[in-house]
Structure formats: C-alpha cells, structure tokens
C-alpha cells in the first residue's frame, strides 16, 4: 500500500485528500504512477489531464518522473505552489 495525498484543485477533482492505494506491479516510478492514476476514474483523469501542472513529492521530497515509488511511500500530488 502507498499513501496518496492530493492538494489544492487536484483534491477537488479526485474528491479525496488522502487515500491508501495498492500500486499495480507496473507502477514503480513517479512517471508510471501519473500514467496509471487516470485509469482510476474520471475525476483522476481530469485532475491529471495537464501534466505540466502536476508536481509530485515522494516522502516529502520533490520527485522527478524517473524517481522510484513503492509500498510504504507517502506520495503527494499538487499544482505549482502559490504561497505567501
């Protein structure tokens, strides 16, 4: 199981802030995760439709498409930050 977190408007589209998910065998990297998630439903497809607007953090560190993900990881998906 991996823990997925969604922030800002990604959360609005997926309808959840946080969920535990069993990653399928073909999902071993951030890029593979982003390719797989839309198949989970139309809300996910909509949240991820523009890849340029998606940032990912794995275990609270910014991650790139090639970085590994796996069971036990905390994986956060969010848009570019607009703080302060």
């Amino acid at each position, binding site marked *: 199981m991996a823990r997925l977190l969604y*922030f800002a408007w990604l959360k*609005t589209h997926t309808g959840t802030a946080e969920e535990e998910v069993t990653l399928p065998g073909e999902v071993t990297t951030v890029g593979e995760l982003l390719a797989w998630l839309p198949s989970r439903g139309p809300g996910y497809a909509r949240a991820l439709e523009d890849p340029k607007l998606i940032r990912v953090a794995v275990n*609270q560190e*910014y991650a*790139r498409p090639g970085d590994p993900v796996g069971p036990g990881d905390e994986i*956060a998906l*969010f848009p570019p*930050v607009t*703080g*302060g």
Partner: protein
Amino acid sequence: MSVRVQREPFDLGAELAALTEGNHAIGGLASFVGLVRDFSEDTQLSAMTLEHYPGMTEKMLERIEAEANQRWQLDASLIVHRYGRMEPGEGIVLVACASAHRQAALEACQFLIDWLKTKAPFWKVEEDDAGAGRWVDARESDDAAAARWGRADPDAAE
C-alpha cells in the same frame, strides 16, 4: 534559527524584538512581511485561504533557512508562515534575518522570500465579494525571482 507554520496571526514587533534581544553583535535586521491584499488583477477580494502540506512545509522551510545560514553569516533568522483563512491587511508570512553586516541581512532576507514564493508547498484560494473561491495559478515572475539565486533546482517534477 527558527521556523514556524501556524494558523494564528503573528505580532511583527514582538517577533522582531525577540530576534535581536540580547545579541549586541547584530548590526542590521532586515525583514519582509507579505500581507493579504484586497485585490487580485481586476477582482476585489474579501479573503484568501492558504492550504499547505503539513510536515513537508516545515521540513522545507527548515532546510532553506539552514541554506541561508550557510550562504550568509547570520546571527539570527526567522520564518513564520501562516495557513488557513486570512482577510485583507493580515500578515501571511514573515521573514527576518539579522547579521553583523547589513548586506548579509538584506540579501538573506531577499533570498528566503524569493524561495518561499516559489518552492514552499502552499496553495492559495482567493475569495471574492460574493464568497466564491478560486485557486490561484502560479506566476512565472516568481520563478524568475528565485532562479536568479543560481540555485540548482532538483525540485521540479518535470
């Protein structure tokens, strides 16, 4: 060195006074406060709400503050960042740096606020007079401001 992420307002005068209190090696104190404005482009705003990523936010703020302390010789530094709902005129974020020399204090303060605006995991919802909320898009000029510090950027997901 100190970092706080909190919902409550901060008392600017008290924060700055505490930062230099008792340290007579300090010759300069630079600070920046970001405040909620009542407009955004051409829209009147009645409030904004900041969402953040608890845990990651604190970790990143502590890391960037440590980096500022490596780059500049600072006697004291402070980052206070609020989250939650705030109304126009309220302080959102406070950055303060104290040093023996004014240039170190000023540069470190500028470095931290540029970084916070582009890398800290906060997202803003703006609320107009009718109470409707809208997620704010990222601004490219903020990225450019952070980029001028010549920092390698392993942080983007692309």
